[in-house]
């Protein structure tokens, strides 16, 4: 084996300079199609979009387009609807990620050991992920609708509601509608990634622990959790960022109402851009959200580094 490897190195050295140049260019050629697409369709528009935050861009106003500096951000600092949306985003993201994670982890643990019918069970519980997000939104909006859906009648039967009403039009509880839909839709993602990480844990560790007399909780705490921790950190990070930006369910189910009680920052941007057609202000709000998410991500990555270095 060593001899063969040496031979290949010798051959590479004897190549003419043109071939060596081709070798050096290889990784760039492989990544070129993906990179060109990303730069042309995402990076360039992102730069233009950021510039909109400092300009007066209103789609229906032909006199707009001028540079206005930080005016949008001054307006934003006084915008009560924005602060409300920020609070709702925290609640929406926190509750969704937490519930998706807990139920996803339990599901992954349930599916970890082989049993008869595991293949079909796994396919069925992961199915919600394949449902288009807007359809998931419509589906749950219908389930919450007392005319056509069963949920209000069940809640009434359980005594949780004084009459079968629509939770989506109740200002105090409306946010639970999109959150439940989001949890239903997002459990599979957590379960899939956590299941993949679980199956990568060496089985002999568990056997050794069992021989040493460790119970289920002990094994979970000292083997499973430490092995899962990096995956959990990165998955929670990605999902938090993703769910904060995820407006589909809210736009479809409540449109931010009633009385802005379910308006999150992402749906607020959507409203500003496509109902008021004020792209400048929408971009300013989006920029603030992007900066907040970047700060949050850096924090989590630092946390993960310290966790990894500890071992």
């Amino acid at each position, binding site marked *: 084996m060593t001899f063969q490897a040496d031979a290949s190195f010798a051959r590479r050295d004897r190549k003419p300079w043109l071939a060596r140049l081709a070798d050096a260019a290889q990784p760039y050629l492989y990544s070129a199609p993906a990179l060109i697409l990303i730069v*042309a369709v995402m990076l360039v528009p992102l730069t233009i979009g950021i510039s909109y935050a400092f300009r007066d861009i209103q789609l229906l106003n032909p006199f707009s387009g001028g540079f206005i500096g930080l005016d949008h951000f001054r307006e934003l600092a006084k915008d009560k609807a924005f602060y409300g949306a920020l609070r709702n985003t925290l609640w929406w993201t926190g509750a969704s990620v937490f519930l998706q994670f807990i139920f996803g982890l339990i599901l992954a643990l349930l599916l970890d050991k082989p049993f008869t019918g595991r293949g079909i069970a796994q396919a069925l519980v992961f199915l919600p992920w394949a449902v288009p997000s807007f359809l998931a939104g419509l589906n749950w909006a219908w389930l919450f609708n007392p005319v056509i859906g069963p949920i209000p009648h069940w809640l009434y039967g359980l005594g949780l509601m004084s009459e079968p009403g629509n939770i989506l039009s109740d200002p105090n509880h409306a946010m639970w509608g999109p959150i439940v839909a989001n949890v239903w839709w997002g459990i599979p993602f957590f379960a899939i990634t956590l299941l993949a990480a679980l*199956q990568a844990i060496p089985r002999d560790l568990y056997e050794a622990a069992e021989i040493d007399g460790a119970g289920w909780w002990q094994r979970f705490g000292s083997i499973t959790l430490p092995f899962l921790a990096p995956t959990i950190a990165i998955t929670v990070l990605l999902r938090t960022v993703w769910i904060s930006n995820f407006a589909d369910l809210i736009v479809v189910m409540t449109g931010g109402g009633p009385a802005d009680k379910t308006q999150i920052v992402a749906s607020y941007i959507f409203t500003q851009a496509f109902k008021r057609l004020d792209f400048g202000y929408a971009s300013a709000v989006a920029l603030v959200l992007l900066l907040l998410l970047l700060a949050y991500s850096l924090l989590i990555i630092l946390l993960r580094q310290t966790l990894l270095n500890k071992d």
Partner: protein
Amino acid sequence: MRRSLLPLLAHRLAILIYIAFALFPLFWLFKVSVTPNDLLYTEGVRLWPSRTTFEHYGFVLRHSDFPTFFKNSLIVSASTAIVVTIAASLSGYALSRFGFRGKYLIVALMLLTQMFPLVMLVAPIFKILSPIGLTNSLTGLVIVYTAFNVPFATFLMQSFFDGIPKDLEEAAMIDGATQFVAFRQIILPLTLPGIAATLGFVFTATWSELLFALMLINGNAAATFPVGLLTFVSKFSVDFGQMMAAGILALIPAGLFFLLIQRYLVQGLTAGAVKG
């Protein structure tokens, strides 16, 4: 081996509860779609209507633009899935097999694309695509969707390549093959599960995309399924049976695709996608 019945029963019961929770909304969608209109309100909360009908499906297929939407979505999703998978195989291979200057810049760039609200891109993309005639066109949608899906697909493909030993292509190269030939003839066939997973993932994601389809497409001729369904919902907001029949129809291709590829997805992630 210790065998106690109670944990076993609890385990099966928990699995059943998860399956019921996952399937119930879809079951309800189907139930309303086969309920005749005259029973819709009188039997609103019954689990199954006393009579069933497929007339809603017939109406949706014959008297609406849904066959067009279906065709458009199929074209867009399939082309996007294929183009993304080709581009992501190449870039994933580069990230998996080469150490090169700028590699971490590329990874950082791809992570950044997963971070910002895509709403921010709508107006700029519209302004770029409009003068070159790519708004209101399926080609324009394919280009935009391809770029959006390439970063995640790259990471996914990279994890599959990471799971294949390097010796394989080294042996082929010693026998005189160039690295590209080794990649195409030896490594790619071994990553078929990864390719299937990527295809399926991108197909499902594209099939569901609403925002850009809504903004870049005008009118029914080039509308995709999500846009069609949403206009349908706002136009016929009283006919629940027809809406849900359309919903079930929208679900079929993505659902089928997903059932086919979901086990490869777990395999691929096990190979290292989320190990970081």
